[in-house]
């Protein structure tokens, strides 16, 4: 499952790395654009499989940031 960018901006911080377990609602990346910071959160839990961006990268709205191996039927 891909977590994508909610706005065009610069990757300010990447808070996870491959293998990091995340829960729904956890912030994985912080984006910065025009003096505003936006937290990108995981919509469901899982384990981080791949990071597609580095801090300082410019990303378009909708660009993939992080790939998760989603938990199935999380209780």
């Amino acid at each position, binding site marked *: 499952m891909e977590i994508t960018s*909610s*706005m*065009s*901006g*610069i990757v300010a911080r990447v808070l996870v790395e491959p293998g990091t377990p995340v829960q729904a609602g956890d912030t994985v990346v912080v984006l*910065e*654009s*025009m*003096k*505003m910071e*936006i937290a990108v959160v995981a919509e469901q839990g899982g384990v981080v499989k791949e990071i597609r961006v580095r801090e300082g990268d*410019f990303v378009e*709205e909708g660009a993939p940031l992080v790939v998760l191996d989603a938990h199935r039927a999380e209780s």
Partner: protein
Amino acid sequence: MPYFRKVLIANRGEIARRVIRTCRRLGIRTVAVYSEADRALPFAREADEAVLIGPPPAAQSYMAIEKILDAAEETGAEAVHPGYGFLAENPLFARRCAERGLVFIGPRPEVIEAMGSKLASRQLMRRAGVPVIPGWDEPLPTLAEAQRVAGALGFPLLLKASAGGGGIGMHLVSSPDELERAFDSARERAQRYFGDGTLYFERLVPGARHIEVQVARDSHGAGVHLFERECSIQRRHQKVIEETPSPFLDAERRAALCEAALRGAEAIDYTNVGTIEFVFDQAGQFYFLEMNTRLQVEHPITEETTGVDLVELQLRIAAGQPLGLAQEGIRQEGHAIECRVYAEDPQTFLPSPGTITRMELPEGARYEFGYEEGNAVTPYYDPLIGKVITRGATRSEAIERMIEALRGMRIEGIKTNLPLLLAVCQDASFQSGRYDTSFLSRPRSGQ
């Protein structure tokens, strides 16, 4: 006598162009400084000279004090105009200008410093007899102390950063639980954004309106006010539409407000132009909110209704000349409105950088834009790309002209808030003049 021979503008975009325009009219040569992201913007071309000062991030360009002062020295500028934002309210910058033999076009560093601390400015204004929002004038060092004070004051409260401003670093807390959740992150954010984690409490003013007063004082002790600006149409505590006169004030209240602002400015021996922001509660009582020790984004509506060029006034005061204005001579005529055009999604208010592929601005309004067709709006700076200002003999005429301008404007390639601006101007409660700071967070009527 000319005020200066050459002025460096330590800013970018629309405000740099605005300062260049007045300087040109007065025969003053201008120096622009620009980052690598802004090479193609009109302000860098329109100045007599332009100096590249660094890469796009503001910390390495528009906030890099010594690089800017080096550029001033190299080009032989005598004075520095800071615009708004960036270094405009940085006392260290004002001090370094003086140390390097340059005139800083703004107030003295001590005054900038005092007004930059919300706690210190509250105390100074209270001493001058200017009402301040009830709250707690001591810093809140720990969560336990904050809980104790909150218990005594009563919820809801605004937890604010003393070094903050413009609504940044502010949390509304309605219960001990919410305070506990907000406290650490508020302090951490205040430390990160402003370099000072000091927090304090202010009582929430429900149904508040934001009304500010333009003041100007010279270095010989003479001062005037140039009436108020109504700034209640805001999103995320940042202004979107401003107008003057305020539709809420009668003559008596207007006089009391402007007199209080002038008294506050006198109490701190303010020099140059500045703006004192007030909050009005529903009963019509007003309270000091903060002072902006610089030219305001929305200054054009004051210029349109008083005929005073506020940038010229700044230059004159900075040059040590007398104001040349008497209070009785300043008259407000007609009504003016400003709409701020932001590169953002009109629904979510999220930023929308990109390249402007088309830009058309119809006649019939004053435009202050930092960009033109073909320019890229980058993610490094403020989302404000420009301002539209209209004037009319009456409020409804000014609104009509604004609607006409907004309908005719075409900005493509990026998302902008133009649809939102038009919807507000056509809204029945906006047109009736009955609105407060919660306007944009409520469903709108009468479209």
